[in-house]
């Protein structure tokens, strides 16, 4: 008994430094951000006030549209990525000639830096010199503005995100598929279930946990997307702010408007959003 206690104490002492470092690294920035949100910002020595919260939360011109856009971007990209990703993984499940080559090609967008992806697509989608409009021209389709058109920039960005990150879902799903017991499916075959029935009632339910993990990872990541948006449409989410998500809005507040306090408020709102979504998905998955 005493020996066990002593062991426990030693364990505690051993892990304390690591816990302290993690608390300092994670807790300090959060507390500091909260403090900033109640003042004017760095070293202003200003009194505690709710002005920043009032200003940001009543900003229907940019803050709330940015919140909405963040949700649309995340949901839109995630749903399509899951559908396409799981579908592709099911197709790639059985070995075929060139199986490995296809997998390698699929990974390419994933391992490319978002800024490089942005540059490539900017060039290809350039409205006046780009290859995409050139090709459309062969079919007598009028040139489109793509990322340079305030009305098209945001949907185009969702497409770019889908292009880049669907392979992540494919990879995770493939890993999950390879771990499935074969007996269950064989039993279903014996019972006379066809391919669609087997996929719907056997394979996908067995994959549930894998899919939840993939959705949480990708969902949180999609909410935080900044690089590709900033690199393609620039600060402020482009003309008329039509592609401005929360992250881009926070960047603009901090470095363009130099409103550090208001940026902190938006960041806190953003943090709560990300946390809520992650908790929601994990909770639901756990309950079922």
């Amino acid at each position, binding site marked *: 008994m005493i020996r066990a206690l002593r062991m426990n104490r030693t364990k505690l002492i051993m892990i304390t430094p690591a816990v302290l470092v993690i608390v300092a690294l994670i807790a300090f920035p959060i507390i500091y951000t909260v403090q900033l949100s109640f003042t004017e910002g760095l070293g202003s020595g200003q009194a505690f006030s709710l002005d920043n919260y009032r200003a940001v939360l009543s900003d229907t011109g940019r803050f709330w549209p940015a919140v909405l856009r963040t949700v649309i971007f995340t949901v839109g990209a995630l749903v399509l990525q899951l559908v396409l990703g799981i579908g592709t993984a099911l197709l790639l499940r059985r070995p075929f000639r060139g199986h490995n080559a296809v997998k390698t090609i699929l990974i390419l967008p994933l391992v490319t830096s978002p800024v490089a992806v942005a540059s490539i697509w900017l060039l290809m989608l350039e*409205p*006046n010199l780009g290859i995409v409009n050139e090709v459309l021209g062969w079919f007598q389709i009028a040139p*489109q503005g793509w990322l340079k*058109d305030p009305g098209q920039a945001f949907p185009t960005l969702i497409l770019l995100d889908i292009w880049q990150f669907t392979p992540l879902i494919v990879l995770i799903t493939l890993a999950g598929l390879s771990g499935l017991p074969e007996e269950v499916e064989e039993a279903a075959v014996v019972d006379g279930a066809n391919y669609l029935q087997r996929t719907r009632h056997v394979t996908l339910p067995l994959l549930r946990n894998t899919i939840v993990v993939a959705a949480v990872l990708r969902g949180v990541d999609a909410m935080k997307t900044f690089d590709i948006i900033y690199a393609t*449409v*620039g600060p402020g989410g*482009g003309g*008329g702010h039509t592609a401005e998500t929360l992250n881009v809005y926070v960047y603009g507040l901090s470095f363009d408007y130099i409103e550090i306090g208001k940026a902190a408020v938006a960041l806190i709102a953003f943090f709560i959003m990300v946390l809520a979504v992650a908790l929601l998905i994990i909770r639901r998955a756990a309950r079922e």
Partner: protein
Amino acid sequence: MERLSDFEEESGIDVEVTQLTREQAQSTLTVKLKAGASDLDVYMYAPPQLGLQYAQNGWMLDLTDRVAEDSVFDWDDFMPATRDAVTFEERVYGIPTVTEREVLFYRKDLFAAAGLEPPTTFAELEAAAAELNQDDVTGYIARAEPSAAITQFSGFLYGHGGDFITDGEASINSDEAVAAYQTYGDLYREHGPVGLVGTTQELVAMFQQGSAAMMIDAEVWWGQLVDPEASTIPAEDVGVAPLPGGSAGSRPYNIPSQALGINPDTSMEDEAWEFVQWATSPEMVFDIQQSGVFGARQSVWDDPDALTGIPEDYRETLLASIESGIGHDRPQVMQVGRARDIAGAPILVAIEGGDVASAADQAQAQLEALLAEEREASE
């Protein structure tokens, strides 16, 4: 940069230089100054964008006495518009280094083929753009992403006789301003490229590829347009002309795009000033001017030897633009970023062919509110 060792040798001061892109520099600088960092002595900043804010926040050393005391330095030699841009409440906070003007670049070969002369008025500009706008060549290109376009729009605003702020009051819904928004938007929509161009790099690429007949932006891009390595257009076909004008004539901006300031928290005030004096001395400005970066000293502009090496039309455009130029190219407020977004919104509406007058009214109300907020904050 290669001259830096001369300074180090003469003065015995070691200089450490950090080079950053414009956006990085702006965010790094702002954070450092706001936090009161002392590891920064001299910095290059953009007076039109940051000057007022930095001065009001006390992030720049007051140089008024130093420039006045030093007769060799000769503060009066700096062009009045550039001095104004670094002076707030009659105190001097920066020394202008690089100046910039808005000009019209055009393709001489296309103009000659169409029998056209470079346009001098907005009406002529529109007519030329209409005539030159063909399948594979866009008649006219300029920045269109609203916040980026503000500075290039300013010459249209002044040319129509307007300004962003008049006698301390917002004036972006005046008849002149609405006419300017309309002109800017109509030109782009009718004769411009597809999509909203956000940066000058994009314009330069289009011009270099031969897909634009005219382009409006700052003259500093000339070097890239005639660069044989990058451009498919022979240098002799690249023409430069003063910005066309409206009822108030040709009124391009003529601004100090860069200036040197000193961090008030530096421990090396005198050394920093010595460096600034050296970097902005007449000899230095002359040398830099010859390499195609134009400074702020009138004496150098008056020296015929300082503008050799550039074509005649370019030289004349520069001199004319200095004569008629306005010393600011964006709203002069503390929060320039916000003001650019506000004043830029009607540009987008104009390009999209919407109701410009009501967009201008809305922008006017927002700019008024911003000005009131800033007045309150400075009291």
